[in-house]
């Protein structure tokens, strides 16, 4: 699932880059960087899971999983942080530096409530912004983007609560995939419309 999401994220990043080259609009550059980071994080997470699944799980070698999750988490925090900054930047049209990650932690960690809460906070903000955009524009494309970020927010809520019941883990992955598929649908609509 991570690999499908990776391909979609890179496709979105590519479209944003083409838009930036044409318009020189910085928000599209932020969107591009954001989805490049999301794609890279998903790829690393997917690869580390594969390594653990095929080689390490039998010997209790779970370290790559923690490394993969850590890289994916940091990539997502910066990526969604960039998106939040892009929305704030556009809304207020002010300069200033984005809230970057001050220091990269040297410890590798596994999925936990704290990291998921950070991602949920950022994703809920983005989902709210895209929801407001949909309520104003009422367009199908903005509805798809809103649905995508809502779905990604739900995915991280399920990741947060999967310790309570393991069934939420596959549901979280399905919700994450649904989010990226909605973005793909938007991308296909945009490129088909002209």
């Amino acid at each position: 699932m991570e690999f499908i999401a990776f391909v979609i994220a890179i496709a979105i990043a590519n479209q944003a880059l083409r838009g930036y080259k044409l318009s020189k609009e910085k928000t599209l550059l932020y969107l591009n960087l954001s989805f490049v980071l999301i794609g890279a994080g998903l790829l690393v997470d997917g690869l580390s899971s594969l390594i653990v699944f095929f080689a390490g799980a039998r010997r209790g070698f779970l370290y790559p999983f923690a490394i993969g999750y850590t890289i994916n988490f940091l990539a997502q925090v910066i990526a969604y942080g960039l998106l939040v900054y892009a929305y704030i930047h556009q809304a207020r049209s002010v300069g200033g530096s984005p809230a970057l990650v001050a220091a990269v932690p040297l410890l590798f960690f596994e999925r936990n409530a704290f990291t998921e809460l950070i991602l949920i906070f950022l994703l809920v903000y983005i989902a709210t912004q895209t929801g407001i955009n949909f309520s104003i524009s009422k367009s199908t494309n903005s509805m798809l983007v809103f649905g995508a970020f809502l779905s990604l927010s739900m995915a991280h809520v399920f990741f947060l609560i999967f310790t309570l019941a393991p069934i939420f883990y596959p549901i979280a992955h399905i919700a994450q995939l649904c989010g990226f598929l909605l973005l793909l649908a938007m991308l296909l609509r945009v490129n088909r419309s002209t």
Partner: protein
Amino acid sequence: MMPEKQAEAKPTAKYRSQLRIYVDIMSVIQRESNEAKPTRILYGANLSHDRLVKYLDELKTLGVIQETGTVDKVYSLTQKGIEFMNNFRRVESFASAFGFRI
């Protein structure tokens, strides 16, 4: 840069970027069945005469519009201009899906 009439009327309105003015001019030409007189473009794109002349020259230099009239000046989009407009609409649609304005 001189403010547009629209911007003067609405203090909260943002200045149009050069790209937006290009697109507005080219949209007027497209709307007029790809044959627009300067007066039409002037009103449609909401520009002063001086600025219209300046932008039309720039667009001609870029090769996205051409002057086709013999007696009266008439402007039309070139193939490059049509392709640019298609790309711009695609990008605009993509950006607006995320709530970003170009």
